[in-house]
C-alpha cells in the first residue's frame, strides 16, 4: 500500500526526521491561508500515488499566497499523468503546501528489501533529485549500499564508511547518522517495503531535510497496522481494481487488451495471459480469483471483467484444487444474472468437480465455447476473434 507524500512526512516527522514546514490543502483558499502563514515562497505539490510529479507539472513554486491559490486551484480537481504512471491518470484531490527551501545539494536515501541478500538494504547516493535507476546507469560509483543484518541493525561502522566516502563534514555526518537510524526504525516498525527520500537536501544553515518522501507498506502486514490502513486513499486506484481489492481478488487492468482472463492461481494467470498473446490477441487483465474463491467472489470477478468495455471475449481457465469448479460455475452464472452482462466465453475447466461445472454452464443461456486444454483454448480464441 502506498502513502501520499504528506502522510509519509507525518510519519517521518513523528520519528524526528527533519522535514520542511508543510500542510495539506483541499482547496485554493486553504492553500492561500497556509501559504500566508509561511510568509514567503512556497511549493504547491499535487498529492498523487505516482513518482515523477515535477516533470509532469505536479509541483509548482509560488512566490506569494495568491500564486499558491492559483496553482492549487489549477491542480485540485484535475488529474496527473507522469512518466512513471503509464497510461493512468491520477486524480488530484489534495495539494501539499510546503515552505520553499534554499537547496545547496541534493542526495538520495532509501531503505528497501534486498531479496537476493535476504535482508534490508540502505541505499545512498550523492546524486539526488533524479530517479535512482538513472543514477545507477550513469553514475554507478556514486551509489553506496549498506546491507543490514536484521538482528544487528544498521552497523555504525558501515555508516561511518559511507560518510567518509562522500567526505561529509562532522555536523552533516552526525545528522545523516541519525536520519539513517530513524528511517531504518520506521522501516521495520511499520512493515515498510520501501522508504525513499529523494531528494534528501542539504539546505541553508548546513541542515539535511527530507524534501520528498515515498513510503510503501507491505500489504500482507496491514493486519497489524490499523492506523495505516486508514491512510489508504481509494481515489488513487481505478474502480475495477478497488472493487477487486474489496473482494480479495488479485486484479490488474492491462491497457489495449481485448480478452478478459479469469484464472485461479497467479502463475497460471500469468501463463494464461501469455497464451492469449501467443494466440494473436492481447489480455485485457490479470485476474487471480485465489485458491479458495467462493461463489460470491467469482460473481464479482465476472462483474469486474465484464465492466471493462475493452473486453470482447473472456477466457476462463480454472484448475480445481481447493477451489471447486462447480462453485465457480455457479458464481459465473450468478454474475451473468445479477449484472445482466453477456460476453462470449472460452472455458477450460479441470480438476475438482469440473464435469459438474460443465453441465451447470451448459444449462445456462450463455455463449460458451468449451475447450479441454489450453492449446485448444488458444485456437478457439483465435477463431472467435477472427484473427
Amino acid at each position, binding site marked *: 500500500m502506498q502513502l501520499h507524500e504528506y502522510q509519509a512526512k507525518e510519519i517521518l516527522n513523528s520519528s524526528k526526521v527533519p522535514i520542511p514546514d508543510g500542510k495539506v490543502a483541499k482547496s485554493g483558499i486553504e492553500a492561500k491561508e497556509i501559504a500566508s502563514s509561511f510568509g514567503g515562497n512556497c511549493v504547491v505539490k499535487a498529492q498523487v500515488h505516482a513518482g515523477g510529479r515535477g516533470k509532469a507539472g505536479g509541483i509548482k513554486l509560488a512566490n506569494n499566497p495568491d500564486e499558491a491559490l492559483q496553482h492549487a486551484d489549477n491542480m485540485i480537481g484535475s488529474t496527473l499523468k507522469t512518466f512513471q504512471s503509464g497510461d493512468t491518470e491520477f486524480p488530484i484531490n489534495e495539494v501539499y503546501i510546503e515552505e520553499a527551501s534554499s537547496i545547496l545539494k541534493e542526495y538520495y536515501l532509501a531503505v528497501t*528489501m534486498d531479496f537476493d541478500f535476504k535482508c*534490508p538494504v540502505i541505499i545512498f547516493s550523492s546524486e539526488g533529485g533524479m530517479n535512482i535507476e538513472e543514477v545507477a546507469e550513469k553514475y554507478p560509483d556514486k551509489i553506496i549500499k549498506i546491507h543490514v543484518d536484521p538482528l544487528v541493525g544498521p552497523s555504525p561502522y558501515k555508516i561511518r564508511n559511507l560518510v567518509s566516502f562522500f567526505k561529509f563534514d562532522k555536523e552533516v555526518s552526525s545528522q545523516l547518522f541519525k536520519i539513517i537510524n530513524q528511517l531504518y526504525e520506521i522501516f521495520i516498525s511499520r512493515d515498510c517495503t520501501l522508504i525513499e527520500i529523494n531528494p534528501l537536501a542539504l539546505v541553508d544553515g548546513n541542515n539535511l531535510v527530507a524534501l520528498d518522501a515515498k513510503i510503501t507498506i507491505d500489504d500482507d502486514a496491514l493486519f497489524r497496522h490499523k492506523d495505516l490502513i486508514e491512510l489508504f486513499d481509494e481515489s488513487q486506484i481505478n474502480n475495477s481494481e478497488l472493487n477487486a481489492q474489496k473482494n480479495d481478488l488479485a486484479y*490488474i487492468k492491462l491497457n489495449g487488451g481485448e480478452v478478459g482472463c479469469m484464472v485461479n492461481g*497467479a502463475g*497460471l*494467470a*500469468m501463463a494464461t495471459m501469455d497464451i492469449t*498473446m501467443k494466440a494473436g490477441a492481447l489480455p485485457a487483465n490479470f485476474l487471480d480469483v485465489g485458491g479458495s474463491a467462493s461463489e460470491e467472489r467469482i460473481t464479482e470477478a465476472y462483474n469486474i471483467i465484464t465492466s471493462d468495455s475493452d473486453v470482447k471475449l473472456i477466457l476462463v481457465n480454472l484448475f480445481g484444487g481447493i477451489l471447486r469448479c462447480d462453485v465457480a460455475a455457479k458464481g459465473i452464472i450468478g454474475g451473468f444474472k445479477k449484472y445482466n452482462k453477456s460476453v462470449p466465453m472460452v472455458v477450460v475447466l479441470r480438476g475438482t468437480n469440473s464435469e459438474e461445472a460443465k453441465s451447470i454452464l451448459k444449462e445456462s443461456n450463455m455463449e460458451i465455447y468449451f475447450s479441454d486444454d489450453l492449446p485448444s483454448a488458444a485456437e478457439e480464441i483465435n477463431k472467435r476473434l477472427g484473427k
Partner: protein
Amino acid sequence: MKSILNKDSNKVLVQGLGRDGSFQTQKCIDYGTQVVAGVHPTKAGESFNEIPIFGSVEDAVKQTSPDIGLIFVPAPFASDAIIEQVDAGIETVVCITEGIPVNDMLKVNNYIQGKKVRLIGPNCPGFLIPSKKLKVGIIPGSIVSEGKVGVVSRSGTLTYEAIVQLTMLGIGQSACVGIGGDPLHGTSFVDVLQMFEEDQNTEAIVMIGEIGGTREQAAAKMIKESISKPVVASIVGQTAPEGRRMGHAGAVITGKSALASEKIKSLKSAGVYIADSPTEIGLRLKELI
C-alpha cells in the same frame, strides 16, 4: 541430511487444521500419506479422523516422531509455526500459507540459518512423490503419475498444468516440488535441481519460473555448472506490466533482470530447452526422451 526425495521414513505432522487445512489433510491421507499427528493450540486431546491432535509441536514430536511438518496456519501466525517446528527438531518443514508479512519471513530466514532444517515455501503447494505415495501439501493426487521426470515450480496451479501435460503424454513424475511465490522463501530452484541431479529415479527435469527476482538466473548458473540431466523450462509473465505485483508477492518486474526475456536468455545459454509457451512444456520434454 538425506534429501526429501530419498528419506526412509515419511511421517507427517500437520499444524493448522482449519477448514482448508482439514480438507487438504484428508486428501493427503487419501493419497496414501502417513499423517501421524495434528497440532492445534486449543484442541489438544481431540482427534482428526483417528489422528491424535496435540497442543504443541513439541508434545506431538515426543509422542509420534514425525519426519515432516506441514503448515496450514493463517498468515499472521504462520512464521511462529515454522519456528515452533524448527525448535521441535523437525527437519523438513513445508509451509503452504500465503500472505506472510515480509518482516516475519526475514526473521524466519535468519533464525534457520545454520540449523538442520529444510524449509519449503511459504506460499507453495508443497511436494508430492508418486512412487512413495507421499503427498505433503495441496498438489492434486489425481493428476500425477509415477515416472522419471522431476518437476519444480514457483507457482501452484501452473505446476498442475505442467503435470497434467506430462501425464497426458504418458510421461510420469519422480517428484513434483513447489518452491512458492514469495520473494523470501526457503528451498530454492538450485536446491531442488541438486536433489534431482542426485536422485536415481529422476532422468529429466521440468522447471517453471516466472517474472521477478533473480532465482531463475541462479538456477541457470547452477545448471550450467553441475546438472547433467536434460532440463526443460518455461517462464511465465511475458505479458506482465512493469512495477505491478502479479498476484504472487515475488512476481513483480523491478528491473531488467526480473524480466521473463532476461531469464529465458540466461537459461538458454545454460543449455536449457525452453518451452516458448506454457502449453508446450510436455511436448518439449517428450522430444528429449
